[in-house]
């Protein structure tokens, strides 16, 4: 039921011009925070321009408004905004990261979207939506916090929602798995529209 995605990411060692890099750039901004409107992704709106998205995964780390933890872009979207955005207090497991979002799971979730995964509940607030994956149970909506097992919705008993999946909305310490069919979907993305990122 639990599958290894067999994917590892490394910080870039060369920038787009071929120069050595740490893979991290830092940009001073006068913006107090950014919303989910992609403004962090352009120097003209106080953010930082992406590196070419056909060969790099761009991750913008910033202050986001309204308590939002992050957002992503699926394969096939516009190149100038391709990548994921993550709230600075929910990035990584040290430094600015604070509980309950201090285990790096926001990046796992957003990169899941970047590799074409949908939310475990199928993005409708009822039982009609699908995450386009056959081995995750149908679920009514997002789960939050640290749910108690089981959370039965949409007739998915006895085990209920797979709220411990990285593509639900629970706290970092409560999400711990992808399924085999989610991995199939991610592998299709990394072997298809995302293949330029592979080394």
């Amino acid at each position, binding site marked *: 039921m639990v599958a290894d995605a067999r994917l590892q990411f490394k910080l870039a060692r060369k920038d787009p011009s071929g120069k050595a890099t740490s893979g991290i750039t830092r940009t001073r901004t006068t913006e107090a925070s950014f919303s989910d409107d992609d403004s962090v992704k352009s120097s003209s709106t106080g953010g930082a321009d992406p590196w070419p998205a056909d060969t790099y995964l761009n991750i913008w780390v910033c202050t986001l408004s309204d*308590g*939002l933890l*992050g957002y*992503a872009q*699926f394969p096939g979207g516009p190149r100038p905004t391709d990548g994921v955005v993550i709230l600075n207090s*929910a990035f990584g497991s040290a430094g600015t990261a604070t509980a309950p979002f201090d285990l790096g799971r926001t990046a796992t*979730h*957003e990169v899941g979207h970047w590799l074409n995964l949908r*939310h475990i509940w199928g993005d409708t607030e009822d039982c009609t939506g699908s995450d386009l994956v056959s081995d995750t149970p149908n679920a009514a909506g*997002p789960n939050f916090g640290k749910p108690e097992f089981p959370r039965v919705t949409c007739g998915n008993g006895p085990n209920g929602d797979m709220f411990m999946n990285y593509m639900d909305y629970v706290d970092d310490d409560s999400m711990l798995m992808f399924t085999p069919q989610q991995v199939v979907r991610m592998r299709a993305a990394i072997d298809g529209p995302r293949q330029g990122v592979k080394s």
Partner: protein
Amino acid sequence: MAAVDPADLEQRWVHSHEEDTPSGQVFRPASFPFPRARGRRSFELKPGGRLVARDIGPDDRGVTTEGTWELQGDELRLHLGAGGARVYRIEAASRERLVLRAPSA
């Protein structure tokens, strides 16, 4: 429950899912000090019956849909055009807190 005053409802309501009960969804005004979340649903009930709903999108961004709303007794009806209608029973309502029973509950 006492009759609901429509004027109490006319503002933007954001899902305070941390406060949900087994039968009810709790909403707070946008000015409420919400903790961080991967996403929050909200809807704005404007005077005159206009509705602006903001749902959690498939890539975690908000998705805005416009429609209309009406209050019938203790029933709040949100009409979202092609998105259909959502009908909630109001369990409690004040300017600071709105509790809706989920459509399926």
